[in-house]
Structure formats: C-alpha cells, structure tokens
C-alpha cells in the first residue's frame, strides 16, 4: 500500500478507471467532457463552479485540476477565492440551517 491515501500522481491515472469497466468509464468521461464545454454558461464560469464544488467536496485532485484550469483560462486569484467562499458559505449555511431543526426539537421538548 502507498504511504498516503492521496497521491498527486494518481490524478494522471484517473482515466485508468475505464480499464475495469470500459462501458461505464467511457460513458462517464464522455459526459464529463460534454459538461465542461462552452454552453449557455461559459467554460470560464464552469471552471469557477467546479473549483467551488471541489472545495465543498474536499477533493484534492479536483482542487489541483481546477486551479490549474483557472490559471490557464486567465481566472484571477481574487475570483478563485471568491468562488471558494461561495462554496464555503453554502456548506456552512447548510450546517447552520439545521440549527432550526435543533430549535424545533428543543422547543417541542421544553416547557
């Protein structure tokens, strides 16, 4: 076994997931590549969304890939950080909104 669960070199091996199931693997990559093409949203906007989501799902591979992609697309670091904050705000908001559930339970059980 490797010493670390995450190895940066493994990102390059991502395409190898098709080796054990070509049908589903190829379908996934075809879908993935179509998603990131310029559409109603620009490739630049999609890259920033991907960067924000990468942080929310805490995927180190995705963070590297979409920081690199952002640099290539001329996205500035201030834009990248704002995108990360959008992801972080939703994530923390998603935790905090459950506070309402806590308040509901508390109030129901209390005299």
């Amino acid at each position, binding site marked *: 076994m490797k010493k670390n669960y995450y190895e940066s070199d493994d990102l*390059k091996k991502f395409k190898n997931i098709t080796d054990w199931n070509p049908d589903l693997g190829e379908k996934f990559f075809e879908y993935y590549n179509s998603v990131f093409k*310029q559409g109603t949203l620009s*490739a*630049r906007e999609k890259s920033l969304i991907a960067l924000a989501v990468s942080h929310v799902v805490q995927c180190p591979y995705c963070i590297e890939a979409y920081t*690199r992609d952002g*640099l*290539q*697309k*001329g996205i*500035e670091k201030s834009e990248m950080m704002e995108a990360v904050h959008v992801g972080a705000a939703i994530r923390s908001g998603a935790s905090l909104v459950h506070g309402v559930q806590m308040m509901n339970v508390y109030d129901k059980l209390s005299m």
Partner: protein
Amino acid sequence: MVSKSLKASNNLLSSTKRQLEILSNGIFSEGGLPKFDSNLVAYELNAPRPLKLEILQVNVGYMCNQVCAHCHVDAGPDRKEMMSRETMELCLNVLKKTKVKTIDLTGGAPEMHPDFRWFVTQIRLTDVEEIIVRSNLTIIMANKKYHNLPHFFKQNKVHIISSLPFYKKNQTDSQRGDGVFNQSITALKLLNSVGYGKSNSNLHLDLVYNPSGAFLPANEKILEKEFKKALKIDFNIDFNQLFAITNLPISRFLDYLIASENYEDYMSSLVEAFNPKAVANLMCTNTLSVSWDGLLYDCDFNQMLGLKVASPISHLRNFNLGLLQERKICISQHCYGCTAGSGSSCQGTVV
C-alpha cells in the same frame, strides 16, 4: 523579481550545454518520459523537414530594456551581443536572392539596436511583403528617442507583434517587471492613435499571450475574445489578433521551472498534451532563424540552445538555400513546447 540575465549572474544555466543535458536526462532518462524523437516514431510521424522557406527571423541582439522572468533569450540591459551592419547587409542579400515573404525582427528589444531604423528602411526597399517587429511595447516609452517609433513603424508598414502576457496589471508585472503593464497600455494607445490595430486600417498590431507561470495556454480564440473585451472596456484599446504561445523550457523559464520545483510536472504536461497534428505545421519547417553573429538555426529556440543548423551552410556569408533545404531539423525535448495542445509558434497556435 529577476534583475540580471543568467549570463551576467554566472548562472550555470547560461550554458547551453547544461540546458541540453537537463533536457536530455532526468525525467527523460531510460524508463521516464519518451524523448521527442522516439515519441515521433511511436506516433509513426516523420521528423519535421524544411519546406518552402517563407520567414527569415532575424535576432538583431540580446539587449533589452526588460528582464522578463520567462525569457528564453536571457535578454536584458546587460547583454551586449549585437548584429553588425555587415551582417545586416548579408540578411538583405538573402532577401534579394530568395523569395522569402516575411522578415521577422526580434531580440532582445530590436528597436534598441543603433542600426534598427536603417535596417528596416533597407528591408522596405527589397521585395519582402511583410516586415514583422517583435516589440515589447515598453521600449516605446523607455526614452524620448523611441517615442516616435509608432510613426516610423507606420511609414515602413511594419507589422507589430507585441507581448502582453495579460490584460490585467498583476499577471503582466509578475512576469515582466513592475510598471510594465501601465507602460504597455500607454504604448498601445500610441500605436492605436497612428492607426495600428484599427479595423479599417492595414496596420497590423497583434498581441502575444504567454502564461505567467508553469501552465499551458488556454484556447487562443477564447483568450483573444477576453483580451479584446477587457482592453476595449478598460482602456479603449484595439488590436488585431492574439497569439497564444507556450513557454518553452529554455534559459530563464527553465531556471524558473527548476527553482520552483515545477520542471518535471511541466515537462509531463507538455508530453501529455502532445498533439500529433501539430508536427506537420511546426514553424521550423518554413522559417530560418539568424543570430546576431550571422549563424543559422532552425528556430529562435534552437538558437538559444546553441543548436546550429545541421548543414554545411551554417552562416549567412555562404548562404545557399538549396543546400539548407536538405538539412535535418535539430530536435530535442524542448520541441514538446511547440506540439502541446493546439501547438505553438511565433504566430500562435498551429492546429
């Protein structure tokens, strides 16, 4: 920020031999990444061969007013190599003898050469269709004697190709030095004011984008759209085309890659992005590069690596196009820079 050339700093990488050793060993050793020539074989591609000579790229000297962090020439104010008028005359003879369509003047900052204006006016008297000057823009603002360069360019119908790494200050200044962005914007406005880059004008002004770091350029057309929009809105600047050029692992960019521990990853990304379609259109197939001392190279990058043409004709003084066309083009691992993604040349992408 870089302030001296590698040569003036006695950096080991100022030796072309050392650079070629790095490019041929390490990650490209047995069992590592494939060398460029074996990769061509693996893709069943022929090595690039000279086609019809269309462009003579003349490097008039390595002196420059800037010391850019990515410069493959290792140019700077401390570089004194400069083409003699005698060698310039040899270039003019070649233009008269051949049907070269384009002469591409580069440096350093070619405008700093004391015979620059003489050379351009002499070229204009030949049958050459196009004179390109690769201007770093800031030279126009660097000294009063250069302020009228836009008029001079216009009089001689010079095609200007200028470096502007980005349409924002931070990225530009981090690569080319503090203040470069603002001076470049002023210079671009001056060029626009005499008609350069305007849609109704035949005075061409193209910009060159190259990444400010260890990554590859994005799609040229999308970048062009963004540059045009931003420069128009922010500064009311117009230009014709944007060329996206990949940084090649030579000289100061190689030094940066090694010092920042990005070298291996960068070379891997170039190899991974190898595009077999780019090989047929490599600029070395229709270009010859001349150094300040009259020696001949397949391209400006080979010039900076000291890889002279593999031909008995290696100097302008005994120029013989027929014999030169029979040569093999010298290749090494830096060539991956010109075949990555959509390819790269002094005129941008090639695919």
